[in-house]
């Protein structure tokens, strides 16, 4: 060990300025090789988490590898030392994944619920929304994929939980509407009409809620997003945003009160909002009607 310790001081995997005795090309190559396994593992996980099929996962990992190498390791060379190279490269992987999704799926983004449901939820929603497959066909196709380790009944259960607005509505002409059997009570038709009305109200609520959220101070908005949409605890958020934890509870309640007042000023009463949110739990914002975290009042308690 003593005989090799001098080379140890030359090569430091924690620093991009490692290998100063090598030529620049060799130095970046060493940096790349030092991080390669971790980066590939990260790329694989990101793609699998999104429910991509195995071949596409492999393609994405290969694409990331290429991205890091191309133009004489340009991505690595752009690292200024502000962060660690390891974390920087993970953000690069995610940015590459975003580009990959843009190319493959256009502007489609998975709903909060699909994300919560995991790779199967995301793969199913994508099949229904992007590929516009019929539910039965999508379920059958995905159940055949060994990597998803799921069954048709499980996928059908998942489908019931996906937000209806994410699934593209199919329009039929009036003639087809006439063919729809009417039950003696007429309840099926009423349900359809009610759903149509709710969808319109949900769109309205979504717009109002977005504008109310945008009016909040940026940090408060961010706290709500992390807490209500991504389910992070306030203790975790305090840690991540470097904030004292205790005042966060009060800030959250204050933000929710502001939102409630804003909604009421626009003529939306809380029972209406709750009804809409329960009908459609993913109004593009992913907020649940009841904040289930212990000790919190949530929007519901504000009424």
């Amino acid at each position, binding site marked *: 060990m003593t005989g090799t310790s001098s080379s140890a*001081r030359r090569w430091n995997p*924690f620093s991009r300025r490692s290998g100063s005795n090598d030529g620049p090309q060799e130095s970046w190559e060493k940096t790349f090789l030092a991080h390669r396994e971790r980066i590939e593992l990260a790329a694989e996980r990101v793609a699998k988490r999104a429910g991509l099929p195995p071949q596409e996962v492999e393609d994405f990992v290969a694409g990331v590898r290429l991205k890091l190498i191309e133009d004489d390791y340009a*991505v690595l060379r752009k690292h200024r030392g502000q*962060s660690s190279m390891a*974390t920087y490269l993970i953000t690069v992987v995610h940015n590459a994944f975003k580009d990959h999704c843009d190319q493959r799926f256009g502007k489609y*983004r998975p709903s909060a619920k699909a994300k919560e449901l995991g790779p199967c939820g995301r793969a199913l929603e994508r099949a229904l929304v992007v590929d516009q497959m019929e539910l039965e066909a999508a379920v059958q196709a995905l159940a055949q994929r060994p990597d998803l380790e799921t069954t048709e009944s499980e996928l059908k259960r998942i489908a019931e939980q996906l937000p209806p607005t994410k699934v593209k509505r199919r329009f039929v002409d009036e003639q087809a509407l006439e063919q729809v059997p009417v039950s003696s009570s007429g309840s099926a038709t009423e349900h359809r009409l009610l759903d149509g009305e709710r969808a319109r109200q949900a769109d309205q609520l979504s717009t109002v809620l977005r504008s109310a959220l945008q009016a909040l101070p940026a940090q408060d908005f961010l706290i709500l*997003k992390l807490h209500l949409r991504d389910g992070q605890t306030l203790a975790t958020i305090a*840690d991540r945003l*470097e904030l004292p934890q205790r005042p966060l509870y009060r800030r959250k309640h204050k933000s929710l009160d502001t939102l409630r007042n804003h909604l009421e000023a626009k003529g939306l009463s809380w029972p209406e909002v709750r009804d809409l949110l329960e009908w459609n739990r993913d109004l593009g914002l992913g907020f649940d009607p009841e904040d289930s975290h212990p000790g919190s009042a949530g929007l519901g308690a504000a009424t």
Partner: protein
Amino acid sequence: MNGPHASPPSDLETLAAFIEHRLPEAERRRVEERLARDEEFYEIYTETLQTLEELEAEPASASPISIGPRLHQRGRARLLSLAASLVVVSGFVLMWAMPRYFLGSTGPTGVSARLGDRADWDLKALHPTTRSAGDPASWTFEWGALGIHLGTHLIDLQVALEAGDWRAAERAAAQLAGELKGSLFFDGGTFEEMASSLEPPEARGDEGEHPGLAPDTRDRHLQTLAEQDELFEQTYQQLGLRAYHLGKWLESTRLMALSRDERPLRNRLGRLSAAERILQKDGFETYKLQRSEEILDRLKLLREADDPQALDFKAIAKLLEDLIVELGRESSSLEP
């Protein structure tokens, strides 16, 4: 709501620095502003956090060197060559990272002896007979404490072996053997055998050539250690507990603090929330959790220092030590 794409590497690096708590206040506020309004940027942020947590939870990353299932997945054939090269590299890194006061002028043996002293735990072995097999809650809890002990001692043994410090290695191996004595799941005999095979250079008669451990002995023991590590990880995974992994994580972080290894230490401290979640999910007792969270809160305060010189390495190491002791305590010793 979608803002401009976050593709410029400078933006990504700023985001990475934000995650690692390395930005000055004004710049942090700017990043928060963008995270609130720019959905694409926000998505990269939350997904990056998730990936970092997952990678952190990978057995390989808890340890200063990569040993464990990840290597196992890639095949045992590669294990030997990878382990050997990683041992050399991590040995280099440790040597490089040691500050002068640690290195002194005594060479590797002196370093390891000092490190060995610092890793001399007085954790009382959790003998299986002290576990209450009939009570699942208590059972889970005791497995948690045992995991912390095993993880801590395993890292100490690894570091001692890498540094060629036979005394520290012998002590850590004996502690592991003690923890596992009579266990139905693990073979404590492996470590007992290891402890008894470690002997001073004068007994081997080659002190001039290898003042510490002979390289072949060291490599053999490191290989055994990698196999045992894999076994512990798999067993704890089957139990649905991550205490063993947490024990390794805490002890290797403590050693980073002791060796004043600023960059990786900051990285680790940036992920204290992941440790917190493991604690909550692993079913540690409430009293123990309360104490542990207090310690974690104090650690969070200590990591705030922007200036490397101001980072209180000693206090951080002490708090991590307190946390290990707290989590490794037997349930019967807990205050009501």
